[in-house]
């Protein structure tokens, strides 16, 4: 029987020759990623209650990224508990203030084609850019994974999304996802979204990870991209040799999909999503007509503070200044990215233009760290979610856009189409 990529991964993880869509399977978990926010602080008391340890200290990966660096005694206590948990259970891979979990996983070569991975964060879908299953679960479910090393799954149908053609100036992978949130909606639960086509083939891993990250905004279980040369190079760059069968992890040519969507990137324009949901999107040109003043422009999060995102910001800001009406905050997605952006001059360009650099972490994207916004304030953000109250006051307004559009809007002091500034 021909199988999709996700079926092949679930077959291997559940030790079956093949699986059918709709079947319930129990899968062996290759990686269980837990975080300071919903990890040890929730899971440790439960392990004590059950009187058990973690199933495999090699496979349980802990990342401190949500409350870093501690801004108050409560955050400090949560981080201390996280560090104590790591020592107590002899966890082998602990990333403490190294960056946002999904980025750190990629930087350190944990993601390999064909793996079955669970993460305690909804944007765990990002890992699927490496051709593996990676999906988000709540802390209660991650407790079960950390104890047993297993989880149940319904074998998913796959929505195939193909993009052909190349982007115009100022258009990015982020614009694809804001467009898709509108086109496909946010309710694709218990489906996988597999991205393909020449546009995706020509993307760097950093861009591909935007697609799979925001598969979460489509409501999908995970997003996936079949591995190719680019994937293998990224794995090698992290110092890990890809498994010999890495390139075999792809959907069969005659696999059957739930839906197939074909889009053309040539005609895509920069997109903006208005409050209070990512599917509330339209072209940036439309928003420019509305004269929306911006109090804060935010660059950051797993999806929007990668090195290429910072490069986009610098490209817009070169020789310009952030508007006196707007503050620009920039939180690189990881410590490594921060160092790279420091040595290649990107941070210099951003700070000269008036941008403020924040520590790496989930921060203001989820209303947790520096950069939250007040009642009636408007923020344009390179993050992935703009639900009411997410970045601070429940009476604030968040617009989502690409790093180009966020930076251009910071310069203009209002939401604009970035193409006039690049």
């Amino acid at each position, binding site marked *: 029987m021909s199988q999709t990529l996700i079926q092949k991964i679930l077959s291997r993880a559940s030790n079956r020759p093949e699986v059918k869509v709709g079947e*319930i399977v129990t899968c062996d978990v290759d990686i269980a990623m837990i975080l300071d*926010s*919903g990890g040890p602080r*929730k899971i440790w008391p*439960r*392990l004590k*209650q*059950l*009187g*058990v*340890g*973690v*199933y*495999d200290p090699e496979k349980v990966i802990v990342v401190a990224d*949500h*409350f870093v660096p501690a801004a*108050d005694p*409560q*955050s400090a206590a*949560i981080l201390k508990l996280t560090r104590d948990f790591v020592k107590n*259970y002899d966890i082998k891979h602990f990333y403490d203030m190294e960056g946002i979990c999904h980025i750190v996983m990629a930087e350190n070569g944990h993601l390999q084609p064909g793996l079955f991975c669970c993460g*305690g*964060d*909804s944007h*765990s879908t990002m890992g699927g850019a490496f051709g593996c299953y990676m999906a*988000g*679960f*709540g*802390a*209660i*479910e991650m*407790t*079960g994974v950390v*104890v*047993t090393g297993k989880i*149940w799954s319904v074998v998913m149908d796959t929505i195939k999304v193909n993009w052909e053609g190349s982007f115009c100036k100022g258009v990015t992978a982020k614009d694809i996802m804001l467009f898709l949130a509108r086109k496909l909606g*946010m*309710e694709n*639960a*218990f489906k996988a979204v597999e991205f393909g086509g020449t546009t995706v083939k020509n993307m760097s891993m950093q861009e591909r990870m935007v697609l799979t990250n925001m598969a979460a905004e489509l*409501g999908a*279980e995970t997003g996936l991209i079949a591995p190719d040369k680019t994937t293998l190079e990224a794995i090698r760059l992290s110092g890990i040799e890809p498994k010999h069968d890495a390139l075999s992890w792809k959907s069969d040519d005659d696999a059957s999909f739930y839906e197939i969507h074909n889009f053309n990137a040539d005609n895509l324009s920069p997109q903006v999503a208005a409050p209070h*949901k990512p599917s509330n999107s339209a072209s940036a040109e439309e928003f420019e007509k509305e004269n929306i003043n911006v109090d804060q422009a935010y660059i950051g999060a797993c999806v929007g503070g990668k090195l290429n995102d910072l490069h986009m910001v610098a490209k817009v800001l070169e020789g310009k200044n952030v508007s006196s009406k707007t503050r620009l905050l920039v939180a690189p997605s990881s410590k490594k990215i921060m160092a790279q952006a420091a040595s290649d001059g990107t941070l210099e360009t951003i700070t000269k233009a008036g941008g403020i650099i924040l520590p790496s972490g989930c921060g203001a994207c*989820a*209303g*947790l760290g520096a950069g*939250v916004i007040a009642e009636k304030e408007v923020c344009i953000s390179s993050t992935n*979610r703009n*639900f*009411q*109250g*997410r970045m*601070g006051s*429940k009476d604030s307004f968040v617009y989502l856009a690409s790093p180009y559009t966020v930076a251009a809007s910071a310069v203009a002091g209002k939401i604009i189409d970035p193409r006039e500034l690049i």
Partner: protein
Amino acid sequence: MKHKLLKGKAWVFGDEINSDVMAPGIYFKESMDVMASHCLEAIDPLFAKEVRPGDIVVAGRNFGVGSAREQAALAFKELKVGAIIAKSYARIFYRNSLNFGLPALISEYVNEIRPKDELIINPVLGELENLTTKKNIIISPIPEHLMEMISAGGLMPYLKEKIDNGEIEVRKK
């Protein structure tokens, strides 16, 4: 979830109610009772104040869309909500709710329920009786493969039972 009838007053919400408004990130570091006191305040400031134990949350499509935060489902547990009934759920919220033993039920006919209607639900048989309108509506029964876990009262009691019986291999610490 025990095999008992659930009885309560309906609180009715629309489509795509997200987990950020159920459990706002700015209260993440607070205790669960503080977090729950802000549940849904952005869209209905009275809900957390006036919801009574056993009340039933009724919603449209894609309930709980967004974050993986288990506090979204736990907030309803903390407020002693008896059940949720929606047209459909976001996947992580759905799994979280059932793992906490909070009945998350599905029905296409939630539009027939009005705020404050008195409801009686049999989650095992998939029946809902609206005492106010005297109309019954059909709900989907709990998925079969989850019945054992739900009958045990959620994931934690289920795991405890399996570990104590030696049915799951675990590493002792």
